[in-house]
């Protein structure tokens, strides 16, 4: 009757609180990875859409735009398609909280005696890792497109994808915490994700657009995430000045061409804002 086979928990010392919160973040991150690894079909279907875009638009437009000294539209699109893959996966991952809510698991997380910030950070880190992985898988297509890869370039790509993924996953988490139902998820995807991708320069150059559209593209956080990716990829390709002029990779704001450092800083800034919003959204979720 009085046997207590399970030992009581040992003390929660203040200095261990931070370590415990870090463990929580790590666990939530690990869960995302396990789920990703276990859904191979999703990994595959995540590839289909970008590949379709690459083939349909890449080849379709290649005929229209033509090849400038060995550089064609498919090569221009390739970094954009990678970005598209990262962004889609990242937002999906962040918004998987809507599923967690629908299937109850969110409750298990929310009632735990842990900081909501740790949960939001874990979710963001996990989703971002998955999204960067999904984007990096796209690199297997590079030889077919004729994009030349180097070790350094791959490192740069993964780094930029990770930054982009963190910003967008946090954004997804933030949006998801303000959505109660699955239907809302569809609406957000249609109304937000696709316009963001189309107006980011991922699929076509942003120069020569009407002024009002130019303004929108410059307000789009994705614009500053896509550009560095394209710049590092282009830097590793053999491009003549004419090709560079035909296929621009830089973003101009108020007549100034942004440096890659400035673009990365802007993306990091957006990431910080979205993470703060995600934590706030998570903290208020019931």
């Amino acid at each position: 009757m009085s046997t207590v086979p399970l030992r009581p928990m040992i003390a929660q010392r203040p200095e261990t609180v931070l370590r415990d919160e870090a463990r929580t973040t790590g666990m939530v991150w690990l869960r995302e990875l396990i789920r990703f690894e276990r859904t191979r079909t999703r990994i595959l279907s995540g590839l289909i859409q970008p590949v379709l875009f690459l083939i349909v638009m890449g080849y379709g437009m290649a005929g229209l735009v033509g090849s400038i000294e060995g550089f064609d539209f498919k090569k221009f699109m390739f970094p954009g398609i990678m970005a598209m893959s990262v962004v889609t996966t990242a937002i999906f991952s962040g918004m998987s909280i809507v599923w967690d809510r629908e299937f109850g698991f969110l409750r298990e997380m929310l009632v735990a005696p842990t900081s909501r910030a740790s949960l939001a950070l874990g979710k963001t880190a996990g989703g971002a890792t998955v999204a960067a992985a999904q984007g990096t898988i796209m690199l297997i297509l590079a030889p077919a497109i004729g994009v030349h890869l180097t070790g350094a370039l791959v490192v740069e790509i993964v780094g930029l994808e990770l930054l982009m993924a963190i910003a967008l996953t946090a954004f997804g988490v933030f949006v998801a915490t303000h959505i109660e139902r699955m239907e809302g998820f569809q609406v957000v995807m249609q109304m937000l994700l696709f316009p963001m991708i189309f107006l980011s320069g991922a699929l076509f150059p942003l120069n020569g657009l009407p002024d009002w559209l130019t303004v929108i593209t410059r307000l789009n956080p994705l614009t500053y995430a896509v550009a560095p990716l394209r710049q590092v990829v282009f830097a590793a390709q053999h491009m003549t000045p004419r090709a560079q002029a035909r296929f621009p990779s830089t973003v101009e704001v108020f007549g100034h061409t942004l440096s890659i450092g400035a673009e990365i800083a802007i993306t990091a800034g957006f990431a910080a804002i979205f993470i703060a919003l995600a934590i706030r959204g998570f903290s208020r979720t019931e």
Partner: protein
Amino acid sequence: MCAIYAEDEQTTRPTDRRRPVVEVHDLVRRFGEFAAVDGISFDVIEGEVFAFLGPNGAGKSTTINVLCTLAHPTAGRVLVAGFDVTAHPKAVRRNIGLVFQDQTLDDRLTAQENLRFHAVLYRVPSDQVQARIARVLELVDLSDRRYDLVSEFSGGMARRLEIARALMHVPRVLFLAEPPIGLDPQTRVLMWEDVLRLREEAGVTVFLTTHYMDEAEYADRIAIIDHGRIVALDTPEALKAAIGADTVELSTTDDTLATAALERVGYRVEAVPEGTRVYVEKGENAVPALIAAAGVPVRSVHVHRPTLDDVFLHHTGRQIRESHAEAMIPARVRAWHSRRR
């Protein structure tokens, strides 16, 4: 504050069973003008199985939500494991296990992964996690499913895994919200065996809500709640005893003669359409004597012991209706069964 508490807890276990682990004083929870919980007070003693019985909308869920720190009390004082639910919600949560009405497992993870996730969030020391997982799975008889995906579990197995998970961090009180309808009767019985075994083996206090009379029978004490108020609180036996004795209904060839004969011998009798109703201490034991005393041939005998249904009817003037619950089937069963993504 948590540090002090946890060390203190270690020295006070094994538990003093007369010590209240849940203390509720004049709890009120209002939603606007409507008082879902309207001034209730009760204690739950360490180690007991305590049932909250009432129809849907009686205030059961609201009460359990307040005790679990998921809702704030409008007024009153609630202590769980010695902590005020308003002032120290995290300390309360660390000391309670929660099993919700609907499933809250991740069915893409294995049983072990679900338990590990919980262990980390509830600060189970890393070096104890593996042993703890083995132990709680053993308690709910799922040791052989440790590495299986939850999506392959039946509803009953998933429910048991949830109970196991709620015990991972060695809670002082296990809160069990009534399981959804849709679980078959056999599974419900098995789950009860689990709950009672937990009390024996893990020494955990169990607080559960139900609108099933037959489930409440298993509890050590029952609080009957209706319209946000506790109308009765006692052991099942005492509750039943309080509303009166057993009744024996005799149908005879001449009920009028039988009634008169029994009354003459000193029985408390009443003529009813079915025949003669006699109030006695122990129904079954009284039957031979009653048949002999009736003086006319007896056609049939019906012995009725008071049930919790009678208790509920007595205190509320209404029967607890399952139809309340039936109306909720679609939403709950959906959450329970359509878990595949």
